[in-house]
């Protein structure tokens, strides 16, 4: 290994000489003489892995199946997709803050500070509102996929890929945050589904998702679950099992049950399975992954010998590949009656689907018993000609009842309000 390195380092050195002298690069000598071999023509038309769709691997359609990466640079304010956004009558959208590339999880404090996290980038921000004037500060950088945020009694918790850290009294120290303290680090280091989502439950415990380290597999011990632990990192225990990857959960304000979104597997088909909204009524329930999807069909590889009846079924299906992420019970009073007591859910939008869906915020209305009555679109317009112009990730209810929505594609947070225009917050 080290020998090998040295050789190539030396060559790199030579190359730089060349560059400095404005000369040509060294020859390909190190590759040795290249025998002129007979070229076997590259076969463009490969076998399809999609039954019945010989066109898939190479047609334009196949290209639509890839994941679209969120830009590392935020969309400038004047180019944000406000004009394209659609809301039910009486609602309006405005930009709450722009210029935060890859804006992911959002958490508001009672004082009105908004914390914003990253997933593919490395920062956590605080947005401070002074009478409608907003200032954005980076409070932590160099973090490893710091997607998860929770705020509790003055302390900000950040979940990185392999640990949870905390900043105490953060709001008094936004300009010079103290050194973070590590709370918990018993998390697997996986790239696949290796980012976290956290929340603090009505029981005062910290809940965290530990996603399956794959698209579909028999999950490693301790993965494909939502765990809970004490705020000091002790007492970790699995809370919900068979969860492929949950990147959003919240507790019912009345019955205190945990509801969570879960992203279904990929590469099965355009329309199956759908993402799930689940409800945990008892600790230790199993929600089906990898054996059963969307509560009603067994996996084509992992599901043999299993039955969906072994598992807890979702309370709602949220659309195939729709990437349902952040969700919040609406506890505000600004919105009309029909939007109270239910859940706003951000659907980040599909990859692995030729005709994109999602990229919106939907509203799930609940029945008295906590079951779901309907799921309807609320904020739409981010999907134009099968391309994203924005992608909602998380939602948060402001004190005045307006709704904040983060967008990791455009790098912004929007505020949705109802009724006569008022300025944000107070």
């Amino acid at each position: 290994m080290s020998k090998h390195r040295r050789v190539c380092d030396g060559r790199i050195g030579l190359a730089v000489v060349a560059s400095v002298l404005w000369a040509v690069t060294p020859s390909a000598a190190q590759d040795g003489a290249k025998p002129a071999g007979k070229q076997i023509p590259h076969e463009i038309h490969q076998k399809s892995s999609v039954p019945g769709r010989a066109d898939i691997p190479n047609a334009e359609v196949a290209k639509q199946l890839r994941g679209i990466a969120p830009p590392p640079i935020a969309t400038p304010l004047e180019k944000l997709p406000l004009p394209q956004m659609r809301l039910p009558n009486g609602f309006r959208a405005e930009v709450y803050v722009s210029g935060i590339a890859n804006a992911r999880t959002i958490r508001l404090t009672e004082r009105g500070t908004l914390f914003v996290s990253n997933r593919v980038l490395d920062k956590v921000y605080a947005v401070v509102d002074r009478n409608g004037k907003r200032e954005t500060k980076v409070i932590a950088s160099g973090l490893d996929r710091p997607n998860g945020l929770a705020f509790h009694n003055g302390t900000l918790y950040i979940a990185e890929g392999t640990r949870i850290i905390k900043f105490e009294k953060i709001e008094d120290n936004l300009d010079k945050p103290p050194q973070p303290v590590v709370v918990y680090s018993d998390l697997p280091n996986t790239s696949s589904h290796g980012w976290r989502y956290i929340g603090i439950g009505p029981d005062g415990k910290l809940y965290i998702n530990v996603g399956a380290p794959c698209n579909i597999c028999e999950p490693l011990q301790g993965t494909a679950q939502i765990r809970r632990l004490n705020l000091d990192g002790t007492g970790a225990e699995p809370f919900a099992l068979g969860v492929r990857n949950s990147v959003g959960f919240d507790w019912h304000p009345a019955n205190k049950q945990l509801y969570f979104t879960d992203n279904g597997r990929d590469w099965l088909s355009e329309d199956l399975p759908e993402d799930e909204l689940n409800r945990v009524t008892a600790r230790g329930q199993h929600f089906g992954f990898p054996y059963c999807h969307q509560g009603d069909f067994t996996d084509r590889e992992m599901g043999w010998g299993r039955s969906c009846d072994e598992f807890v079924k979702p309370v709602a299906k949220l659309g195939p590949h729709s990437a349902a992420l952040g969700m919040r019970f609406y506890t505000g009073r600004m919105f009309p009656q029909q939007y109270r007591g239910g859940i706003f859910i951000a659907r980040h939008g599909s990859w692995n689907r030729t005709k994109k869906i999602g990229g919106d915020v939907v509203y799930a209305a609940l029945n008295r018993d906590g079951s779901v009555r309907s799921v309807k679109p609320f904020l739409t317009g981010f999907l134009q000609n099968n391309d994203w112009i924005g992608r909602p990730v998380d939602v948060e209810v402001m004190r005045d009842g307006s709704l904040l929505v983060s967008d990791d594609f455009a790098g912004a947070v929007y505020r949705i309000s109802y009724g006569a225009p008022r300025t944000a917050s107070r």
Partner: protein
Amino acid sequence: MIASGTRIKRGLLIAAALVLLATPGMTQSVAERLAPCLACHGENGTSTMPEVPSLGAQPAYFLLIQLFMFRERLRNVEPMTSMLKGVSDDDLRRMAEAIAKLPAPKADETPLSPDRATRVRELVAQHRCNFCHSGDYSGQENVPRLAGQREDYLIKALRGYKDNTRRGYDAQMADVVEPLTDAEFAEFAHYLARIN
């Protein structure tokens, strides 16, 4: 074997390249800025140096993301992180656009083993490399071109995703390599390096 004296020189020379890059006054054209880069990566889009990737015809968005990641040390590999330190967003964009216009790399001319090619086609059908990297492996948007890339670099990249030393910008390749073995990486690399 190259002596370690060269290694010391390498440090100095990278420093010299950095000085060149950081020449004050924005009069430096993109071409001038890229000259030190292409000394390593190959002026005509094809790298001739071990484990240094060819950059020709890479999609501009992929390049922008990788350059951004080097600058922010999200992809922390020397000399790339030092080379891009402090470069503005706009300059990253210009460099990415200029590099994308370089000619596609020349495929390795040593013979493609028909057996290995068959195995790779079977693996591709299973793992759908072509869906994202496109049917001719020319890449698209955030997904890199693989056709004609250096064999040693392809192996290095795949191993990096597998052992987490290269964390991609997003997790797409992590899911892909999860079920793959080192022997299969070698097969992919052999094949991809030899197609145009």
